[in-house]
């Protein structure tokens, strides 16, 4: 290594022009190195953007194909979908935090009603559960469109300003963005087919618990799109709560749990929540973990209601979380995740035996999307 460098310094067999060219090249690399990197970053983003556009188009086409089976032509569905691209919620002001949750809930309800109206306009002849599935497809299309818009914004800003920070901050998270986009694209297919998705683990656990008694057990609607099943296990009254299926609904589990507790003036000995949770890289899919606290991934209002009522009556909350990749959470449920439901049922039974007594009333809430699960 040293000898060639010495040879270079001694300038063996070269002339002044060669030296000059060599030094100019070093200067060019020094000056334009960052520019070259920025150019490479931009080309990476451009290619990812191209793929995001294709995913966006493909998802929208699937939605149009499916929705047009229920009363409206493809052109009409396409026109309405295009009109709602970019639809979203403007967050409430948090400067005055008093009542922020109620304001957020009001906005979420308004958005939900609006989307329901749009879907009835798009597919007036769809049955209730098909309507729910179409709504989930519609939301996946809007999310994909939103991701595309964000990446495009940074790409154009980076190209206009040649600012490395615009370019690199997107380039660094590009693999993650592409993974999320791919997950949403795959979810459109799952919603179209009406199969359970990974996030449906909570409702699946409840369904599995119910089926041990009677798979045909009738449910009561305790809150908006929330089913309640009553069973008895080893002398304990178990109130099983899940989103109403088999359409793709998540319902309002917070309302349901609050109502059940208030109806009994707080005479609930324990709340057990089951949900799907994101896994860290390296953790196995379908690993079961127990937590204390409300396991629910809503924007805030439902979790707030559960925490508030549990604190008011000093009811302990146990949570069982089944870990999975975010991609698996919105894709068709994998075999290992569906089989984890049996282990979760066993854990719930153990909690009931060890931490509650005969005659106690316990709420078991399966949180998640109930698509493909009654």
């Amino acid at each position, binding site marked *: 290594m040293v000898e*060639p460098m010495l040879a270079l310094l001694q300038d*063996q067999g*070269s002339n002044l022009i060669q030296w000059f060219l060599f030094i100019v090249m070093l200067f060019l690399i020094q000056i334009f190195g960052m520019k070259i990197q920025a150019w490479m970053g931009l080309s990476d983003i451009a290619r990812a953007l*191209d793929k995001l556009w294709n995913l966006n188009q493909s998802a929208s086409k699937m939605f149009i194909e499916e929705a047009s089976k229920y009363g409206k032509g493809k052109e009409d569905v396409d026109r309405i979908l295009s009109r709602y691209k970019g639809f979203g919620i403007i967050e409430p002001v948090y400067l005055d935090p008093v009542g922020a949750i109620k304001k957020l809930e009001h906005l979420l309800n308004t958005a939900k009603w609006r989307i329901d109206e749009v879907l009835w306009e798009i597919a007036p002849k769809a049955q209730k559960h098909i309507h729910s599935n179409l709504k989930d497809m519609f939301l996946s299309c809007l999310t994909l469109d939103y991701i595309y818009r964000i990446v495009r914004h940074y790409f154009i800003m980076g190209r206009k300003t040649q600012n490395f920070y615009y370019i690199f901050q997107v380039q660094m998270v590009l693999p993650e963005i592409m993974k999320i986009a791919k997950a949403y694209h795959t979810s459109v297919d799952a919603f179209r087919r009406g199969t*359970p998705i990974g996030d449906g683990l909570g409702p699946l656990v409840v369904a599995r618990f119910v089926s041990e008694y009677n798979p045909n057990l009738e449910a009561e609607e305790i809150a908006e799109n929330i089913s309640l099943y009553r069973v008895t296990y080893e002398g304990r009254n178990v109130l099983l709560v899940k989103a109403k*299926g088999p359409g793709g609904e998540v319902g309002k589990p917070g309302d349901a749990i609050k109502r059940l507790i208030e109806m009994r003036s707080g005479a609930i000995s324990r709340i057990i929540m089951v949900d799907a949770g994101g896994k860290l890289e390296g953790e196995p899919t379908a690993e079961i973990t127990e937590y204390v606290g409300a396991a629910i991934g809503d924007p805030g209002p439902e979790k707030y209601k559960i925490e508030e009522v549990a604190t008011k009556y000093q009811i302990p909350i146990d949570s069982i979380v089944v870990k999975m990749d975010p991609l698996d959470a919105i894709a068709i449920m994998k*075999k290992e995740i569906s089989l984890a439901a049996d282990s979760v049922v066993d854990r719930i039974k153990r909690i009931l035996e060890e931490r509650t007594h005969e005659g106690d009333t316990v709420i078991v809430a399966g949180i998640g999307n109930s698509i493909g699960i*009654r």
Partner: protein
Amino acid sequence: MSILRSSKKEEGRSSLILFANITMLLALILCGVAMIIYVLREFSDATSQSPYAMGLIMIGFTLIFFAGQTLYNLLRFGMEVGIPHLNVITVMKCDSCGLTTTREFQSGDYVNKILGKCEKCAGVKYISNIYAEEPKKKKL
């Protein structure tokens, strides 16, 4: 922009740009390889340590590295948009004898759907599970 109106012309243009990019990158890699081969053949003696030869080798490796990396990224992100094919299985169970059978998922299937009477014991047959599994790879 309307999805149905996105023209085929646009798709054709996108494929053409992709083809042009790949061709250009392959040409750059070939240039890099040619430079290195040229230096190794022409400057095999002590003169290969001259800045000229060293510069050519550096440029050659740089071209191969950058063009190779860009080509890799292009192929990684430019893959066809498709949904991975998965076998979706419906598991059916009898609630009295526990007989379990499986079949391909059919539209309208859902967990805890009552399917009728069990063939074996006339108990209630219902769908107990629906899941996806990767298709088995054929052994060569």
